[in-house]
């Protein structure tokens, strides 16, 4: 039989019908559906045995302790550590720190800048040789900037600086620096500490206590424990927090009350409160108490209200509560954790002295200063004496600059000027985990492990109420070709014939660990903290009314709006940029595509002829930034609130192309008498773009 067209059609029809009676169509239908749940391009779960290691975040300014969950030896999660003096939750930076090990912005290998200006890879051996040559040549004209104020890497850097005969070693500006300077001016040989744990009423002036001031997670744990949830059997709150500041920030959201004040008037408000306390009979023992009293008297309630914009009724209630509290505590700081100078901290200390809580339970405590672990190295407070912004302004360009986890080209006031300064330095090396703005300008970029991948330590971050020393052990295998900064420096020093006494950083940490009672290195490395209640005896202080009088003099704002910068941890730090998992936490009212929002209240906006959603230009006289306006009623009158952390030009796609860097607007000016620069009182004009 010849198979003709008709026959073929019949064959096909038969086959078609026959197939329906086989598993083919049905199995394929089912398997196709099963295929959709197992697409090869979707990552699979990788099982394994769960184990835990412990570390302390070197990335998050809160120095939060972390319990790292490992699955089959692979880190997957950061979990909180309860019962640790710095722990009790995780911050929005630290909680995805494991994931940040894989950020696209990481420096994977040592890089040097070739003649054509582009980065080329080189081996660590070559990199170290190059570094050694350059530092040898620069000698005493080498400067150091560290962005990690709590670690012992600074000991190594400063010992090395000393060995080189170099004096220019700096830490990035911070609240700790302001406080250290304040303590020094007042003649207190101690690190100021705050015994939040035992306080029952905290007035935070400017200090964004629950988001960016001090060891935040510890602060927030205390808030958690001190404020039982409002239930049926409601216990009276053990801890009340009042907040004075220009922006209704994270702290203000839960503070009762929020006292809105003009930005940069924290010190004046403190003096105003001092005046009210003195009027109620408070005093302290100080050679210049009478001067202080006179100075405070200038800030009678009316003047205080005028200068700070504070609501007197609310203020009086707060003062009353302070007086009534068993363990009142005043914390003065900056809404963006930098740049407010020493004077406000001094005024705050005087307030605490008026409340009689120095070295008392729940008050301000005087902690022994952190000491260096290497002979010849400077202690932290010594390094704090050097003001980085002032030094850069002086433009005494060094021959070589060593940066450790510091991003001054982004984080200092006037980043453009800082970048120009950096460009003038013949050799710059950045030890950095991420390719940040500063690293991108350097001649040599050396990848270091992020906190989870390296051994490091944390020594009593500013804000603690007791001495806390933690070792952060290596929790995870590095995801890049990294070395520890300190190890590299120790090695280079040795090669240069300047033995610093340690072969490895770990050895230094081991000698530090044994200083603490009942703690050995292994215990600390396993995640425990060494805690010491030791305090420096309080033997009086000088209020330094002379300094306060000059430094806290009222400023005329003129036609300008006060600039109120504020910091939020979910935007990361200058070192990290916005962590990948955090972009989703930015609200639609904070960032829209490339545009960031700045905020002012409706009355101020109306005054300026602006309305919600307008594109505006903020002009500090020197620099401008563009942003969108959000009308938000939680901002002080005549003030524009701006958030730090946007406007990265380096790092990765999670940080880039998002808003503008507010530091552009900041103008650092010397704070009279204190030797520090301040930039918290910047004024700006705001106009429609």
């Amino acid at each position: 039989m010849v198979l003709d067209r008709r026959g073929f059609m019949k064959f096909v029809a038969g086959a078609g019908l026959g197939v329906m009676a086989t598993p083919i169509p049905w199995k394929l239908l089912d398997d196709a559906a099963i295929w959709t749940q197992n697409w090869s391009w979707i990552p699979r779960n990788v099982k394994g045995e769960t184990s835990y290691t412990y570390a302390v975040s070197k990335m998050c300014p809160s120095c939060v302790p972390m319990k790292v969950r490992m699955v089959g030896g692979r880190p997957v999660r950061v979990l909180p550590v309860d019962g640790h003096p710095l722990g009790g939750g995780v911050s929005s930076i630290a909680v995805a720190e494991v994931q940040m090990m894989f950020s696209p912005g990481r420096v994977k290998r040592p890089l040097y800048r070739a003649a054509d200006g582009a980065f080329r890879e080189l081996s660590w051996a070559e990199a170290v040789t190059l570094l050694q040559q350059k530092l040898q040549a620069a000698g005493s004209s080498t400067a150091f900037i560290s962005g990690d104020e709590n670690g012992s890497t600074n000991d190594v850097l400063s010992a090395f600086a000393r060995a080189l005969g170099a004096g220019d070693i700096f830490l990035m500006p911070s609240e700790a620096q302001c406080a250290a300077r304040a303590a020094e001016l007042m003649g207190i040989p101690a690190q100021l500490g705050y015994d939040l744990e035992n306080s029952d009423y905290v007035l935070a002036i400017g200090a964004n206590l629950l988001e960016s001031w001090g060891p935040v997670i510890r602060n927030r744990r205390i808030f958690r424990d001190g404020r039982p949830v409002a239930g049926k059997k409601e216990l009276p709150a053990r801890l009340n927090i009042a907040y004075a500041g220009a922006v209704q920030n994270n702290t203000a959201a839960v503070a009762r009350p929020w006292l809105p004040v003009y930005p940069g008037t924290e010190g004046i408000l403190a003096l105003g409160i001092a005046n009210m306390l003195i009027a109620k009979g408070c005093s302290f023992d100080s050679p210049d108490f009478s001067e202080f009293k006179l100075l405070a008297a200038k800030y009678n309630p009316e003047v205080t209200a005028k200068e700070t914009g504070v609501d007197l009724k609310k203020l009086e209630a707060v003062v009353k509560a302070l007086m009534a509290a068993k363990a009142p505590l005043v914390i003065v700081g900056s809404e963006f954790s930098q740049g407010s100078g020493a004077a406000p901290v001094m005024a705050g200390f005087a307030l605490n002295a008026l409340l009689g809580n120095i070295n008392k339970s729940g008050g301000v405590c005087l902690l022994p200063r952190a000491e260096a672990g290497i002979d010849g190295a400077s202690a932290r407070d010594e390094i704090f004496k050097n003001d980085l912004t002032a030094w850069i302004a002086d433009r005494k360009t060094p021959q070589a600059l060593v940066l450790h986890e510091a991003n001054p080209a982004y984080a200092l006031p006037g980043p453009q000027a800082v970048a120009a300064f950096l460009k003038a330095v013949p050799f710059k090396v950045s030890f950095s985990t991420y390719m940040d703005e500063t690293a991108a300008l350097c001649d040599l970029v050396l990848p270091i492990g992020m906190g989870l991948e390296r051994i490091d330590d944390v020594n009593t971050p500013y804000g603690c109420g007791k001495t806390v020393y933690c070792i952060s052990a290596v929790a995870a295998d590095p995801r890049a070709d990294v070395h520890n900064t300190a190890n590299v420096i120790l090695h280079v020093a040795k090669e240069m014939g300047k033995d610093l006494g340690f072969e490895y950083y770990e050895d230094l940490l081991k000698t530090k660990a044994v200083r603490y009672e009942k703690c050995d290195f292994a215990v600390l490395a396993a995640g425990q903290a060494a805690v010491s209640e030791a305090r420096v005896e309080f033997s009086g202080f000088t209020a330094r009314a002379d300094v306060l009088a000059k430094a806290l003099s009222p400023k005329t704002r003129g036609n300008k709006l006060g600039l109120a910068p504020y910091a939020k941890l979910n935007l990361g730090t200058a070192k990290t940029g916005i962590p990948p998992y955090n972009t989703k936490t930015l609200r639609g009212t904070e960032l829209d595509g490339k545009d960031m929002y700045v905020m002012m209240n409706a009355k101020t906006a109306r005054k300026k002829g602006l309305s919600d959603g307008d594109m505006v230009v903020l002009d500090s006289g020197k620099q401008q930034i563009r942003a969108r306006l959000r009308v938000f009623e939680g901002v002080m009158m005549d003030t524009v609130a701006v958030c730090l952390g946007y406007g990265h030009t380096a790092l990765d796609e999670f940080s880039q192309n998002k808003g503008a860097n507010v530091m552009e607007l900041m103008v650092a000016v010397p704070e009279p008498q204190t030797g520090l620069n301040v930039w918290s009182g910047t004024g700006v004009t705001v106009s429609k773009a």
Partner: protein
Amino acid sequence: MSAKKEFNVKWGMAIDLDKCTGCGACMVACQAENNLAPVADASNKLRVMNWLVVFELSNNKEFPDHEVAYLPRPCQQCAEQPCATVCPVVATERNEEGGIVSQIYPRCIGCRYCMAACPYHARYFNWFDPVWPKGMEKALTPDVSVRPRGVVEKCTFCHHRYMMAKDKLRAQGKNIFVKGEKRGTKHSAIAEGDYVTSCAEACPNGAIVFGDLNNPAHRVYQLTHDNPNAFRLLERLGTDTAVYYISSREWVRRLGDNYLKDEITQKPEKILPKKH
């Protein structure tokens, strides 16, 4: 609609809005725990995958009387689900001891009817396949399957942790239920705190309390029973959610539901005529 199911154990939350500062740690903890992919530009909030969103609440008063509050919104795990009843393929249901509304990714066909039904916007669709920056997929947890494009997902109260907590008990040779104090009741043998969601665990402020709403020994029970400050979102819809919010501020509580002008802020059974 199917009859409401009651369970011995009803996992739930009490979120103290007087404690939440809106820092976002819970959102990040949630993403890391549940294998949600990060995105570089997250400004289109209607397209961003977040099982837990922190809303900003305002009392809508002008400066200086303005107040702000933050409201974390996980899946409310309704006992009367608007979503599960409409799913055409039983990809979501509430049928297990514990009262957590399930979401089964390999069953979901992606019709998004459940999203249209959920008034809490707790459901999210995978508009594209999830993509992690190169290598970051190595940091995924093994406990939650990664969802492909085209399926709906939502907060599961970290259900995998519940499973693991139960397994731990079993490995110790223990029962997973214990008798309750009241006759005829039984509770999960999982000790309070041994099963908590990732968000509750991460929150430094302790704003999120997690536990069994039926167990009088649990904090979450104590916080939500007869507490005039406790309320639930859109209670008058009758969804009977397992997420309670707590605030001593009346304006915050009032924002938890829609009220007519002359209605006072209180539990819906007092506003509404009794349901037949």
